[in-house]
């Protein structure tokens, strides 16, 4: 205990609120340096908030915090000390990237801390060796077990040799053996670097026994601070768990509820019989030939780490998953997927407390009662009974999402037993719930089993809970290691408690999983290197290495998600074909029908003009006005032409004759075009000298020549295909990018932005680069399609097009980036991007009508959308044959978007969590 007077952190009057919930309430304390300091207390008392603030990941709302003698409320101070701090957030490998391999994950962090290739390589080698991960260097993080994932998280935290290591519940949900190994590793690290401070939060009170210093927290307050022995002495208790309960103020403590299990009654009939149950997902065996029998009235426990197959087995029993092999009998029958009757006898409470969080407690209960078709009167009584029993009276009208975990758990239980099932299956019902609430919950379970004869099948990773079951099955990697009563299991291994017994079973399974001897050697090697290692250079304003760290990471992730990659590369191809062919302003194949009430050579001569047109297709003649009206109404003709009686006679006599046309106006653009066609044809008719009218054809006073520039045949494909390229490059990069940033936020790896030296600008540009590359490859594909498939030649400068495209994809990815900077969920970002790109791209950016001719909000939206400036470049180079000198204004406008979008994203993206 050297440097006992040194402090790693000083906290003064710190308060933190989330809306109306107070996480930290005027907390003041000092954390000694060079020690293993533990934060203990149940979930939701402010441990995580405190650690996140210490690590600089969360903004300080009120109060002051000094870490390593720097005031971390200032961004400059944070930048200075953050290379000396490592932070591992709560949740298994939350700051890791599941699609990246072990090696790639560590490399990513090494790059963030600006290590050279040489330094990076020896450090990684050493860390992998000392954690026993060396054999798994190429395995993706998502395929690691919980314990291994925690070790990887530790490697990533240690890569830059921090002075302070902040770990938030590093061992929750990890099996006891891995947990023990994890603490051994921490001990060795501390032995090697005696100056290192470690601050840990944990929910396992047993672990806290070994810490140097404890901070006990409850309800946002600090209950007590001191060495474990002091705390125990102060409260006159034997264990930290008891000490903690004793420290709790006014709350009513459970009265000797520890062990009141009565033995089950005699030889009861079996309720569940599982024989050789096996479940495979692809080549991965989740559950491997599991067999057990659960008898009536028994509390049967399933014990094992996360990912050991507990949940999968339970899902097979409830019929949610079919078993690959083997069978399970429930109440002596095979459970069929569609068997609704059997479901009425089973209650199931899944791991995630599957309540409808948007409903209130009462609504949840009533909904379930109704789904089980309990008679209304009975349902009312039953709900009242459950509310009383589960102590929910004070919460009846609160939303399930606002309940504390412990209450939610009781509500889940009430919901699961609302129909009085004979069998209750509970999947990790108590994870994340504080010790007191856990006690109360078990009292409820025991009551159900003993007094109501319910059979209970429960899974857990807490050993003290497991010891309350009548019988246990120890599970590991899909297999049952042993099944017996807790007492027999302990006896079989001659262990002092259940945890030790479990560990011996595990060790028997894979002897010598970690050999301490090897580790001691690497320790020495590490020590030598440590001295040689120099502190990473002070955070530069912009580091290309850190930017590329993000770019490489993002690129790797994209490569590993084939669905996203396929979509990114070929989604545009598909839509290009569809849109290139489908969006058109050419109006043709128009249908018309004739009501010729004259039937003379003159009338036929007039109609001949129309019939000869390629735009029109004639339908059977109209019989009368009613027919005309009907066919216009049902849309079977687009236009009707009526030639009145006496048309021929009028012409012959030189009286002005009239022909009338009715056009279907349901689609105005088409109607206008038809009108134009008809007028043109009428002019042609008049000018046609062949027409046998008595009057000479009138010569027009002037010859008006319409010259369609750039596209003599006025074929819409020459404008539409380049425009479609612009549209595709506006939609897809934006949507890919929008997912990319918000994804980190939703999955939690955004923490790496908060606590490492990477700046926001490096983060944003790094994320943008891979998508710019994807967008450019899209452009190449689209370009080739335009030229080869659609035969739209490039008449102008390719270089100008390319330059414009590169700038444009920077703006469209930037546009997505901006949207994702203010969205908090992936679906919101997708929604937002879809609605904010599709409409402007299709309607307001010149695709159909020049932006300058739009009116109202449409023009404003159009002017703010980058595609309005790229479309002229695409169409200009393809169809107008232009080059740089004609297009520089558009290119300049596009360039202006980049700093604006980036700046806006920077302002919206925070370097700390609120």
């Amino acid at each position, binding site marked *: 205990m050297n440097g006992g007077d040194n402090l790693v952190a000083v906290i003064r009057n710190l308060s933190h609120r989330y809306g109306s919930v107070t996480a930290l309430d005027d907390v003041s304390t000092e954390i000694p340096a060079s020690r293993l300091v533990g934060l203990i207390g149940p979930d939701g008392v402010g441990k995580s908030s405190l650690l996140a603030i210490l690590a600089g990941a969360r903004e300080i709302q009120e109060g002051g915090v000094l870490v390593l003698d720097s005031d971390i409320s200032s961004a400059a101070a944070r930048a200075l000390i953050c290379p000396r701090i490592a932070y591992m957030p709560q949740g298994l490998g939350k700051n890791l990237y599941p699609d990246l391999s072990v090696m790639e994950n560590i490399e990513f962090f090494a790059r963030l801390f600006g290590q050279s290739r040489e330094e990076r390589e020896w450090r990684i080698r050493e860390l992998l060796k000392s954690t026993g991960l060396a054999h798994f260097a190429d395995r993706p993080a998502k395929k690691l077990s919980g314990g291994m994932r925690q070790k990887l998280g530790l490697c990533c935290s240690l890569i830059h040799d921090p002075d302070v290591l902040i770990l938030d519940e590093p061992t929750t949900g990890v099996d006891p053996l891995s947990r023990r190994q994890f603490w051994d590793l921490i001990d060795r690290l501390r032995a090697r670097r005696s100056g290192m401070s470690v601050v840990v939060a944990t929910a396992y009170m047993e672990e806290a026994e070994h810490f140097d210093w404890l901070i006990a927290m409850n309800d946002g307050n600090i209950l007590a601070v001191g060495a474990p022995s002091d705390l125990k002495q102060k409260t006159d208790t034997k264990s930290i768990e008891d000490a903690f309960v004793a420290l709790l103020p006014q709350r009513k403590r459970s009265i000797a509820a520890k062990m009141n299990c009565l033995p089950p009654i005699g030889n009861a009939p079996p309720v569940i019989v599982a024989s050789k149950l096996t479940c495979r997902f692809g080549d991965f065996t989740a559950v491997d030939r599991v067999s057990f029998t659960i008898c009536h009235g028994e509390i049967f426990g399933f014990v094992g780490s996360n990912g050991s197959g507990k949940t999968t087995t339970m899902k097979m029993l409830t019929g949610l998953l079919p078993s690959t092999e083997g069978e399970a009998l429930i109440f002596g029958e095979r459970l069929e997927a569609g068997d609704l009757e059997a479901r009425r006898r089973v209650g199931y409470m899944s791991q995630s407390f599957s309540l409808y969080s948007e409903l209130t407690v009462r609504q949840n209960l009533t909904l379930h009662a109704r789904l089980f078709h309990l008679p209304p009167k009975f349902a009312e009584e039953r709900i009242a009974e459950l509310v009383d029993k589960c102590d929910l009276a004070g919460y009846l009208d609160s939303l399930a999402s606002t309940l504390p975990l412990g209450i939610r758990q009781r509500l889940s239980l009430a919901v699961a037993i609302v129909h009085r099932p004979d069998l209750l299956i509970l999947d990790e019902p108590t994870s994340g719930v504080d010790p007191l609430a856990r006690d109360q919950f078990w009292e409820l379970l025991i009551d159900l089993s003993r007094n109501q004869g319910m059979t209970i099948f429960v899974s857990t990773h807490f050993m003290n809970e497991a010891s309350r079951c009548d019988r246990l099955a120890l599970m590991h990697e899909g297999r049952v290691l042993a099944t017996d009563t807790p007492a027999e299991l302990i006896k079989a291994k001659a262990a002092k408690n259940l945890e030790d017994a479990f560990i011996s079973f595990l060790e028997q399974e894979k002897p010598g999983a970690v050999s301490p001897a090897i580790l001691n050697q690497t320790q020495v090697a590490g020590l030598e290197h440590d001295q040689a290692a120099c502190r990473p250079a002070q955070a530069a304003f912009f580091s290309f290495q850190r930017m590329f760290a993000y770019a490489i990471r993002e690129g790797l992730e994209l490569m590993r998600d084939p669905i996203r990659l396929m979509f990114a590369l070929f989604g545009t191809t598909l839509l290009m074909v569809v*849109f290139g062919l*489908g969006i058109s302003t050419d109006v043709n194949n128009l249908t018309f029908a004739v009501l010729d009430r004259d039937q003379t050579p003159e009338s036929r001569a007039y109609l001949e003009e129309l019939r000869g047109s390629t735009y029109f297709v004639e339908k059977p003649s109209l019989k009368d006005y009613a027919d005309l009206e009907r066919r216009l109404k049902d849309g079977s003709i687009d236009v009707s032409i009526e030639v009145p009686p006496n048309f021929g006679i009028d012409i012959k006599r030189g009286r*002005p004759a009239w022909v009338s046309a009715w056009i279907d106006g349901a689609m105005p653009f088409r109607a206008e075009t038809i009108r134009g066609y008809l007028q043109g044809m009428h002019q042609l008719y008049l000018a046609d000298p062949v027409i046998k009218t008595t009057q000479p054809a009138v010569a027009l006073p002037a010859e008006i020549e319409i010259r369609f520039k750039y596209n003599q045949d006025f074929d819409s494909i020459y404008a539409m295909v380049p425009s479609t390229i612009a549209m595709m490059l506006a939609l897809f990069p934006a949507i890919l990018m929008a997912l990319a940033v918000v994804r980190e936020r939703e999955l939690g790896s955004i923490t790496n932005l908060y606590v490492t030296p990477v700046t926001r600008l490096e983060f944003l540009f790094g994320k943008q680069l891979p998508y710019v590359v994807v967008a450019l490859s899209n452009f190449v594909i689209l370009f080739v399609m335009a030229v080869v498939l659609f035969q739209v030649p490039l008449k102008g400068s390719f270089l100008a097009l390319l330059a414009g495209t590169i700038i444009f994809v920077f703006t469209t990815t930037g546009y997505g980036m901006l949207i994702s900077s203010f969205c908090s969920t992936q*679906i919101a970002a997708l*929604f937002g991007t*879809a609605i904010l790109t599709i409409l402007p791209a299709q309607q307001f950016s010149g695709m159909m009508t020049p932006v300058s001719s739009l009116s109202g909000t449409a023009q404003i939206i159009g002017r703010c959308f980058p595609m309005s400036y790229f479309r002229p470049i695409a169409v200009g180079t393809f169809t107008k044959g232009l080059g740089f000198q*004609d297009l520089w204004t558009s290119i300049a406008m596009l360039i202006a978007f980049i700093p604006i979008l980036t700046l806006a994203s920077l302002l919206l993206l925070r370097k700390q969590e609120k």
Partner: protein
Amino acid sequence: MRSLSNIFWLGTKELRSFFSDWVLLGFAIYSFSLAVISQAQSNSQELYHASIAVVDEDHSELSRRITHAFIMPLFKPPVLIAQSDIEHLMNDGQYTFVIDIPPNFQRDVLAGRQPGLQVNVDATAMVQAGLGSGDAQQIINTEIAQFISRNESTPLSPVNLAIRIAFNPNVTTAWFTSVMGIIGSINILAIILAGAALVRELEHGTMDHLMVMPVTPFEIAMSKIWANVSVIAVAVSLSLYLVVRMLLKIPITGSIPLFLSGTALYLFFATAVGLFLGTIARSMPQLGLLYMLVAVPMNVLSGSATPLESMPPWLATVMQASPSTHFVAFAQAILYRGAGLDVVWPQFLAIGGIGALFLALSLARFRSALRSASS
């Protein structure tokens, strides 16, 4: 009976979740109000404020009359430019139309020498070029004819053509774009709402919970369908009555109740497709991507932007399989042409049939989707 009660109660839960999500609610309101209004008022599908320039090398009374004949709102006031500027101004896309009146134009017209007059049209501004070139020709012809006859009324030709537009006499595009805007919003919302409702339950684990209770996949699917259909149907009715009729003052001749019942039928299809996509996607982002590939073409190619007749025949045939095409067809028939059920029943039948097919497909996939979600 039991099944109906399950469907009803599960549906009320869907409604509660929808109304507790304020962002979603705000989004729905936006897409049926502001989005519809800005599309209706954009004038993007008509000749409106087209930019025009005149190169007047004649400086005569006739050339001035022609210049002044181009008036708002079809054309912006013409700008006089020099001949040498034509090329680069059109390259820049500054003007869609440039009229070149040659020297001595008036003298030659009066002398009956039929001088030429050039109208340069930027053919890459598709809508304006197509509609405006005919109009420009007409305007110039009329102006010259009136100049010659010194008379404001045009003399009648031996044969005259009276063109009238049925159902929308002034060819107001807002009539069309507003309702097509609503249809677009329906497409966007219906599919994603139903799909997200399913994926959300898969991701939150509440689907497992439902599957162990005595309810069938059919009941779960139907509850999501009726809840989402009713929410959007109400939004559409409000949008039609309040936004389109009252705010935009667009007269609707046809039977709105008939249109709404068709809409409900279409929503049944769209939510069934959403559920189907939800059973394919393993996560929300994948649902979003799938949605883009399915819904965007369905929306763009439905005939609301480009008439089906203008598409290649094979594509038009393929689009017959998409209910969105039938939806647009009956929307136009009912709302503008005042058609009744006797006219639109084939479309109703097609939409209902395809919807039922997708419902069957998603039910068939329900269990395997659960499996992949829990693996």
